[in-house]
């Protein structure tokens, strides 16, 4: 029972009973995701009824914008959490890479600047990965330390000031839209699809899920655990940097505290989406819906005129509630498995 819950139903099932349990697991998973989708739609309809402005094209694209910043970072975070890891240095990586873009943009092309940002994100991710893998520091503590390291670097780099982005081409490229879909949201969907493939259809993803559910077993089975861990951190750093690239475009500037406290929203989106914190299970569709859910929630609170301070309270409460419900569900599964 626990096994079929923690590892995704393996494709090479042969027996009739196994096939049925696999199918029912898929159904159950779909049902639990649709449950989130239903919550999202209900929320949207309710807010739309109370404030018709909610469905205005400007507002919808605004929501998609907000969702894509969190979502881009959440793609990497899903991968890490599925491997039982975590990265709290989101705010630092975003700040450093965005400042890098803003600094080099006057003298190079947009493509080079973006590439540089992603590269810097990957290097910072590599640093996190090495700390966690080879110095064996617990991921959330190591990345809490590097969060402040990166923030310090960002503040020192800018001397605490704001670096403006004057290139209108850059702003147009990062905040434009194709039809009614904003560019960042399209990039977010592509990245989510890519991460899904990475997690579910590659050896790397399999290794990740294997050590996410049982690191010792994965090591004993001869899987390249250390390498996969570092790779996951590098990929995640690149994802964060990508979020920073679009955020800088949206703000037309970059500064040290542009993404302060962002890690909270990112983890919340991933966990509410249904990726288990204890590792071994990750769902990108859930992450996409989770990111949208929080964007809609924030937007609804703004439209309803609730003080922005409540958003702190609500995000934290929703995250704790989601994890508590998840813990409850997991423990009943264990009890049933034992019986």
């Amino acid at each position: 029972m626990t096994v079929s819950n923690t590892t995704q139903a393996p494709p090479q099932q042969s027996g009739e009973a196994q096939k049925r349990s696999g199918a029912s697991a898929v159904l159950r998973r779909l049902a639990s995701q649709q449950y989130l989708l239903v919550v999202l739609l209900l929320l949207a309809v309710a807010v739309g009824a109370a404030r018709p402005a909610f469905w205005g094209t400007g507002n919808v694209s605004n929501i998609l914008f907000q969702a894509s910043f969190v979502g881009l970072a959440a793609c990497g975070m899903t991968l890490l959490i599925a491997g039982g890891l975590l990265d709290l240095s989101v705010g630092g990586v975003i700040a450093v890479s965005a400042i890098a873009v803003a600094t080099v943009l006057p003298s190079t092309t947009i493509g080079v600047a973006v590439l540089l940002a992603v590269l810097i994100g990957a290097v910072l991710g590599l640093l996190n990965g090495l700390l966690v893998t080879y110095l064996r520091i617990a991921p959330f503590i190591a990345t809490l330390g590097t969060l402040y390291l990166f923030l310090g670097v960002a503040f020192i780099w800018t001397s605490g000031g704001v670096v403006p982005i004057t290139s209108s081409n850059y702003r147009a490229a990062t905040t434009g839209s194709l039809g009614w879909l904003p560019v960042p949201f399209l990039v977010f969907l592509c990245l989510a699809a890519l991460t899904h493939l990475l997690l579910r259809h590659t050896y790397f993803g399999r290794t990740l899920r294997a050590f996410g559910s049982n690191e010792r077993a994965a090591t004993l089975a001869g899987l390249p655990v250390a390498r996969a861990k570092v790779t996951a951190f590098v990929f995640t750093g690149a994802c964060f940097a990508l979020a920073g690239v679009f955020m800088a475009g949206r703000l037309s500037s970059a500064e040290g505290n542009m993404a302060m406290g962002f890690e909270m929203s990112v983890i919340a989106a991933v966990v509410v989406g249904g990726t288990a914190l204890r590792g071994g299970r990750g769902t990108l569709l859930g992450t996409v819906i989770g990111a949208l859910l929080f964007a809609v929630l924030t937007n609804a609170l703004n439209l309803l005129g609730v003080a922005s301070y409540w958003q702190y309270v609500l995000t934290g409460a929703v995250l704790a509630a989601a994890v508590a419900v998840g813990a409850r569900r997991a423990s009943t599964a264990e009890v049933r498995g034992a019986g």
Partner: protein
Amino acid sequence: MSEATVSTQTLVAEERARSAELARRADSRRRLVQNAGVLIPFLLVLVIGLVAVPHFASASNVTNMLVNAGILAIVGFGMTVVIAIRGIDLSVGSATALTACITAATVNAAGPLAGSLLGVVVGAALGLVNGVLVSFLRVPGFIATLSTLTVFRGLVLLFTGGAPIMIASSSFKSMATATMLGVPVPFIAAVGIGAGAVFALERMRFGKHVVAVGGSPESAVDSGISVTRIRLLAYLISGASAGIAGVLLASQLGAVNASISRGLELQVIAIVVLGGTSMAGGRPRVVGTFIAALLLSMINSGLNLLNVPSFYQYVALGALLVFALTIDGAQRAAVRRMLEGRRS
């Protein structure tokens, strides 16, 4: 037959003696590493400070350092207990800010005594929220306290409306700066609370239970310890100590706002781990936490006196934390090697 039994017994006895010897050596080595981990940086920073930093040993700077170290250490004692049960409390910064703001408002409305008492009670209540989340709702400690970090910070902002609160009572404001025999009151409070924590952890049943739960929660459950209760108490203690720190901070600053003690959790975790309390649980080291609090306070005030931009303090703190955790990891690896007999 009997000979075989005897030889088996001697073999077992020898094996026991050998592993006891190994464990003893591992323990002494571990002690050496963990004491060196905090004492060497402490002495180093002290000497550098005395030699290279102007006005480092001036009376006002020493008082300032002792007040800061006292407040930091008080939060650290609570965190030491939580980390010793394999938990973590990331919400201490927000909890301190919330209690400081509530204390400030209450001092203005109902006097210093009521304000101080209410501050500690509010801190304990916030700790209780964390404890319930962790022990009854089974939310992992760092996620539970990461969410309450945001929630408490939101509550501070709601409570203050984003505006600073000035404290009118001068008797309350003089509490943190008053001295007894030349030693500031917060520092004396920290020594007192630290002594209480040492007593509770070394001499009381509660301390043994904390070590048992931190060492192995499963065995603690099997030996009839109420792990839920110990976890709840640990987070409660952490909240209450954050509350005491909040009261002292409000008194020290004289005016509080919603953004005070942001990032305090990192400093506190750094001093606890640097002091030798292992992230793996089961080994609280209150004295180490205390020394590390002095160390961090010296570093901060030294950097301030040298006119180093405050951004560099972030970097220093991050580097210090990574250093402390590396020592912690090396220490555990050393113990493992000793117990496994030097293989690999």
